[in-house]
């Protein structure tokens, strides 16, 4: 989404080519989830609100290499 906001202020051919490649809003719904990237902080938050932690673990960080 942010990528599109950034690009919407620009107007060159390069921008149009970038827009074809970057993730579309429909491909970034999962980023609306407040993923923690610090495990200890996730534990602190989980204990505070008495919820389990859902861990998504990948070879390659899910938030950066997916």
């Amino acid at each position, binding site marked *: 989404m942010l990528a599109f906001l950034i690009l919407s202020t620009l107007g060159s051919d390069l921008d149009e080519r970038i827009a074809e*490649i970057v993730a579309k809003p429909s491909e970034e719904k999962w980023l609306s989830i407040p993923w923690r990237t610090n*495990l200890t902080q996730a534990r602190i938050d989980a*204990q505070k609100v008495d919820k389990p932690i*859902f861990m998504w673990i*990948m070879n390659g960080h899910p938030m950066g290499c997916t």
Partner: protein
Amino acid sequence: MIEQLRQFIPYAGNTHSLQWRKSAESNWFMDTVRKVNLRGERNETTQGFYVVDAAGGAYGWNNNRDVDRVLGFMRSGLTQYRSVASRDVLQIQPKEDGIPDPPAGATVLRVYQRIMPVPKGADSANENVQRDHFWLLASESAALVKGQVADTLSLRLCRFVFNDAIRGEPDMWRPQEISERSFSASRKGDVVTLEGSFAMATAKRERGLKGKLTAEIRFSGERVVGFKGVADTTAWGQSNYTPNPPKGEFPLKFAFILAPTTPDTVAPQATNHGASYLTGR
């Protein structure tokens, strides 16, 4: 799925920092996940989904992405979590997450890649969009603003960025697998144009990638305030963990933009190569 996740604290992590590097955080992770997944004991990857609690209780592991199976797994984990009558309250001290921060003065870029168009008959995994980050080092942007291209920049782009990562984690290129690396920069006002041609392939050419980069970098003084780039490449073959590529050569495109300063800006995948990520060597 998103609604179901509201019942949890969602955490996303990387086996490189949690399993293969030693830290207090990785010790806790491995001690916890071995209760439900013994792959780590055999030095196999621990990737997948887990439901755990703050104290290290583990309620399940699932390494299947089918939506119904993941939802069922989440429901089961939640039921098990709630069946525990009481929990000790721990004094959990904040720790570093083990993920390296960008070096001082580095500019963080988001990098996307996509096969366009996906050849007919190709596996559906080839329709993925791939995301990563790239650290443009302070020394590299200082060279660009003078209309020069630092050797480290072209080398790091070739080795660590221009890889086919659409279907998983690619093998990064070795320096000796780069057969072409020709980059130039020119400055006009506050904008520097960066152009490059590059080609990489394994010794027996089972896997390769070649293409051209065009980027416009806007500076305010010596600070990068805008970055727009596109690379048109042709790729072929697969890495160890990127199976089922399209047959033969296929068009792979890359886009570069400035990354917002948000917590989701995690370290580039290739930082698991340690210091060589910064030098290219």
